[in-house]
């Protein structure tokens, strides 16, 4: 048998191998490039628009230069605080159920599946639900409804990450607590949850960072507010919401503010994600294994 066809096939196969590698590298570059471009552009446009005024002033009336987004920053803080109040306890409770009480049961599997599916529901639908639940009975937009919308979004995420972290606690730790005659609820809270708490906290931070940038659910709940407002009963400004309103407006000055706001938002989110990564890479359970 002559070796020529074999050699040709072999060359083609090597060519295909190199080609595939090239394509893979090319795709990676193509993917990373816009990301880098976005970041650089954001920093460039945002930094030049950021000044002290941004953080301490409220927006000026249309047409006037200057002003800031102080009310939006504070508003976001209030909304996120409210959302965490709703989302974190319920989410952690759900995670505790999945890990400590329902492990392996069909019910727990259903809860877990539903939580994952809920995570994929568009956030605007959550906003509609909050609108229906809160805005309609109250007859007006409010910070409270915005907090509810964001809080509902946090629950599935916090629930799943809490479950994951609790599952990492070795069973022998639970047995040690039970063996001492510690009541089950005390054992779960003071031992298991406490051991997993670094991981649980990072999970909450992830959920926090995710809802911090959400705009859609706030459009018809918190609604936005060009003035200083901290009451839970009134419409309130929020950073991502303000960015959107300014971006689609025809005023250059507001565009400038939008870029500055975007930069602030992205810095906060990058900080949160990096912190989460740092903590999880160091090992969330010190000495538990």
């Amino acid at each position: 048998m002559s070796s020529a066809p074999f050699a040709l096939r072999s060359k083609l196969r090597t060519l295909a191998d190199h080609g595939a590698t090239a394509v893979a590298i090319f795709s990676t570059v193509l993917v990373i490039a816009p990301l880098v471009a976005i970041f650089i552009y954001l920093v460039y446009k945002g930094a030049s628009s950021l000044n002290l005024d941004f953080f301490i002033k409220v927006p000026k009336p249309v047409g006037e230069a200057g002003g800031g987004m102080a009310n939006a920053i504070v508003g976001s803080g209030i909304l996120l605080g409210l959302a965490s109040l709703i989302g974190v306890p319920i989410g952690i409770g759900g995670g505790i159920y999945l890990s400590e009480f329902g492990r392996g049961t069909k019910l727990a599997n259903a809860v877990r599946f539903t939580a994952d599916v809920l995570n994929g529901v568009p956030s605007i639908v959550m906003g509609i639900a909050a609108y229906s639940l809160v805005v309609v009975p109250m007859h007006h937009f409010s910070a409270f409804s915005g907090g509810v919308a964001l809080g509902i979004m946090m629950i599935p995420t916090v629930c799943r990450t809490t479950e994951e972290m609790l599952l990492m606690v070795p069973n022998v730790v639970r047995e040690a607590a039970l063996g001492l005659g510690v009541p089950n609820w005390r054992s779960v809270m003071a031992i298991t949850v406490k051991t997993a708490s670094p991981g649980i906290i990072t999970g909450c931070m992830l959920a926090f960072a995710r809802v911090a940038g959400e705009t859609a659910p706030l459009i018809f709940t918190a609604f936005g507010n060009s003035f200083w407002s901290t009451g839970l009963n009134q419409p309130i400004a929020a950073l991502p919401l303000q960015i959107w309103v300014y971006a689609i407006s025809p005023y250059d000055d507001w565009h400038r503010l939008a870029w500055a706001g975007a930069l602030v938002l992205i810095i906060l989110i990058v900080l949160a994600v990096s912190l989460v990564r740092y903590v999880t890479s160091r090992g969330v359970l010190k000495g538990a294994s």
Partner: protein
Amino acid sequence: MGVGIEVINLNAWYGTNHSLQDINLNIPGNQATALIGPSGCGKSTFVRCLNRMHETNPIARVTGTVRIGDVDIYADAKPVEIRRRVGMVFQRPNPFPTMSIYDNVAAGLKLNGYSNRRALDEIVEKSLRNSALWDEVKDDLRKKSGASLSGGQQQRLCIARALAVDPEVLLMDEPASALDPVSTSKIEDLIFQLKSQYTIVIVTHNMQQAARVAEKTGFFLNGRMVEFDSTHKIFTNPSDKRTEDYITGRFG
């Protein structure tokens, strides 16, 4: 003072697996009783029935009577109450990873609401002395975490933690099997000392260990208790051929 344990017709299941069949025996108080047998024979399951830890597994089931002192632990009491009277030391040392040495020893009390600080200090010291760990850790009680000790020290910490709640019975499930020989011998010394205050039931793979520390020994095989007698008799003149086969190393 330790109390005796009376076991009557104990049966245990893991799901459909009948892991313990018709166990009957009387464990004397203030003595050490060893339980020996090959892997999977049910001795660990048995001790976990004595402090109602077996039923923490959702597919586990127990029937029969276990009387500790004069309390039927299944009929007359709740698991949490029993586990305060019957302490357990596990095969692998399992100190609470987020707690200091002090907090580990005090855990059984603090988590049950005991708040008298001065009394706690005394109890912690006493328990650590009783488990031969005091001298090694007395300067780092609150500074070092429980998990930063060596394996043998961790196991003695677990013993101290179990002793701090002043149980009447101490169950030890192969307490030295994960430890080096030096730590093992320290633990065996401990058992000797603790016998005078507690009833000790020790599961062991190591027949020489049983011979060294226990007055009575029970031989388990395939979920049944084959023979239960004084250690001397078990190791020199066992009544059952299966016992003899095991101790001479024919199997297991």
